[in-house]
Each structure stands twice: as C-alpha cells, then as structure tokens.
C-alpha cells in the first residue's frame, strides 16, 4: 500500500466503492469475482464493514437483504431523509431522468439496453427511478432478445399535459426513424 507505484486499494475500499454504485443487492459471490478475492474473505470483510458502520454510528448501514448486500440509510436518520425526500427538490427529475424518459416516450416499447446505447451512458438506475415515479412501466419482453421492454404510463401523459402520445411534438429531421434504429438493434 505504501509503495509509490502500488496505488492498489484495500479490499475494504474496493468493496465500499462497488457498494456505492450498485442499487440492487449484490451477492458475496459476485463481489468475490469482481474483487478477485476468496468468497470467505469477502464475506468476512463485508461483515466487518457492516459492524464498523454500526459501531461508528454512521448515517449509512451495510445490510444483507434478499440474497445480497446493499448500502441503506441508517434507520435512526429516517426523519431527515424523509424531510429531504419531501423537500420538493426531489419532485423534479434530473436531466438524466428527463432524457431517459424522452427516449422511452419516443421509442417505446424500448429495452434498457437500447436506451443505454442511445444515451451513451448506463441508464439502469435512472430507469428504476422512472419506474418508481410511475412515469414508465413494464411492457412485456422482446420476443427475440427476451429483454424487458418499457413504455410510458398514462400518468406520464398527465404530467406532461398532453392527451395521448400522438400529441408529442414531432422530432427534427436529424433524428433517424425509429425503424431504422430498431432494425440494427442488437436485440
């Protein structure tokens, strides 16, 4: 660790970093593969970390739920988190969410993979946010690829203030046809 060229992070640090970006519980086996360490060591470190957060009375907790590990806000801090959530700041969608929603609206039904390909950035978390907010819903699976497809909801139309999808403004001439795009789709 102290060698100048070896900036290799500790197992604990690598684990914290991964846990910060995953928003679905991740199993210790997966973590062990990604971190290239034995599963037992990973499990022991996860438990140690979880205990450490609790002992230090941190605002976050590391818990094993539904077959995997995930960071949660500490229960003791719930009142503040609730206030923040209700604050109104959260009523607005982020730019990333608006963009993702726009892609779904104009290209539905569409898979997450396709949205990611169009936007050039991973859109999984954003799509989950849109699902939670009730703006987007499951639209079955693609016959070929078995990918889950998404479409906008009536609530979306209501929030945008339009009667139906036909009322969406047409896109400019630079945007390729949906057919053109989906034909070359990987699935």
């Amino acid at each position, binding site marked *: 660790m102290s060698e100048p060229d070896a900036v290799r992070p500790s197992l604990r640090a690598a684990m914290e*970093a991964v846990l*910060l*970006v*995953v*928003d679905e519980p991740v199993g210790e086996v997966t973590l062990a593969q990604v971190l290239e360490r034995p599963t037992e060591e990973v499990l022991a470190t996860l438990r140690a970390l979880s205990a450490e957060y609790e002992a230090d009375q941190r605002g976050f907790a590391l818990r094993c739920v539904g077959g995997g590990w995930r960071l*949660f*806000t500490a229960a003791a801090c719930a009142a503040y*988190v*609730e206030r923040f*959530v*209700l604050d*109104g700041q*959260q*009523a*607005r*969608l982020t730019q*990333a969410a*608006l*963009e993702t*929603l*726009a*892609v779904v*609206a*104009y*290209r539905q039904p569409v898979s997450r993979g396709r949205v990611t390909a*169009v*936007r*050039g950035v991973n859109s999984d*978390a*954003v799509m*989950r*946010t849109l699902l*939670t*907010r*009730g*703006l987007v819903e499951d639209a079955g699976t693609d016959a070929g690829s078995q990918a889950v497809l998404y479409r906008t909801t009536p609530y979306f139309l209501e*929030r*945008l*203030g*339009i009667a139906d999808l036909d*009322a*969406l*403004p*047409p*896109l*400019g001439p*630079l*945007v*390729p046809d949906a057919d053109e*795009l989906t034909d070359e789709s990987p699935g």
Partner: protein
Amino acid sequence: MIAAETAQPAGRPPFEVHLENFTGPFDLLLGLIAKHKLDVTEVALSRVSDEFLAHIRRLDGAWDLGQASEFLLLAATLLDLKAARLVPRGEVEDEEDVALLEARDLLFARLLQYRAYKEAGAWMAGRLAVEGRRYPRAVALEEHYARLLPEVVLGIGPAAFAAFAERALTPRPTPAVNVDHVHSPRVDIAAEQALLIRRLQTDGVASFTALAADAVSVVVVVARFLLLLDLYREGSVAFEQPTPLGELTVRWTAR
C-alpha cells in the same frame, strides 16, 4: 514538413504533410511556430505547395476538391501572416504598411489567444481523465422513501421535452477532423426559390434582410441572393438600394 491530416475519402490517399492533431489553420501555425521553432518568414511555402501539387498529380485527376480547398485555406493563412511579418518594424512609410502592421498584430494577438484556449483545453482533458475515474452515487431511492415522493414535476412543456429526445436520439457525430469550413452544406435551390417567390408574391415588397432572416446558414443567404439575381434577370423582381451597402429592397414586379 507540414501535414494536414485531412478526412480521407474512401480509397484515396490523403495529402500528407505532418502536424499531428490538425484542427484548423491557427493550430497549424502554432505547430509550425512553436514546435519547429520556425520563424513564419522562413516557412518555405513554395516547398509545401510543390508537395501538394505533386500529391495531386499522383492522384491523376482523382483529387478531392475538399482537400484542395483546405490546403488553400492553410496556405492563405500562412501567407497572410508571412506578409505581415515581412514588414519591417519601426519606420512606417505609408498606409499600406500601417494596415499590414495592424494585420500582423492582430494575427499574433489571435494566435496568442488561441494558444491560451488550447492550453485551457489541455488542462480540461487532464481533469476529465482523472475525474472520469470517479463515479457518482446515482441510485434509486429505497422503496419506503420512494413512496413518500411528491408528485413528479416535469417542469417543462412538450416542446422542451421533445428537445431532450432530439438531443439524445440525434446520432453522435463520429470524431473526425473538422472540414466544415471547406465543405458547404447543400442547399435545396428549388425549395429556396419557391419560398422567395411565395413571400414576394404575398408581401409585394420586402427587404433582403427580412428575406434572409430565417436562413439557417450563410450559404443559404448567398443562395437566396443569387436566386434573387436570377429572378431579376427574368424581370420578376426590381431592386432598390438608395445608398451603397444600404438596405436592399426587393419588389415583386411579375404578375
């Protein structure tokens, strides 16, 4: 040696003179002056042009107009600077010299300015590379908090919403040397002509400024002007321009 890495049309060898990362004439000049420690007055323009002509001959008629005009642009910028530099400092004889001196100062000022932004860009590249290794937490809310969320406020209307879609769905241009400055976009002449005639028939009279107001590019403005000359030749319109460079008024004179 100079080289413009021009965007290469399929199957045709590009003109090779050598400056990596060429993005424009200022870049070329900076490369020459800074990197090769060349005084502009010593840049052997003739050698560069000889090389270019030899290159074109090798292509045996199959040369690319885009490449040729890009070369001309570079050569002209170089020549401009070279001419300005050749004026001796100090004694200024006549107005022409003054003009050249001013041109020289302006060119150097511009070069310095460009260099500063280029350095700022390099600094940004470094930051982006470092920061690209840090990922922000962007995780969906825990279920029990998500239920508390107030109603979504989109905060934008359908038009702005469509703009988001348009931005995301427009194919990203593939990185390439920018040659927009030599390749004029095509103009739909028939459509432009129809538009001009329709407006003039409706309004009877219009200023050129008004007729060109919604042109999306300079090329379209030029196209409209040429089309008006064409209509003039046919006797469909008359022009009025009381003062040189003043407002040009176009009157529809055909039935």
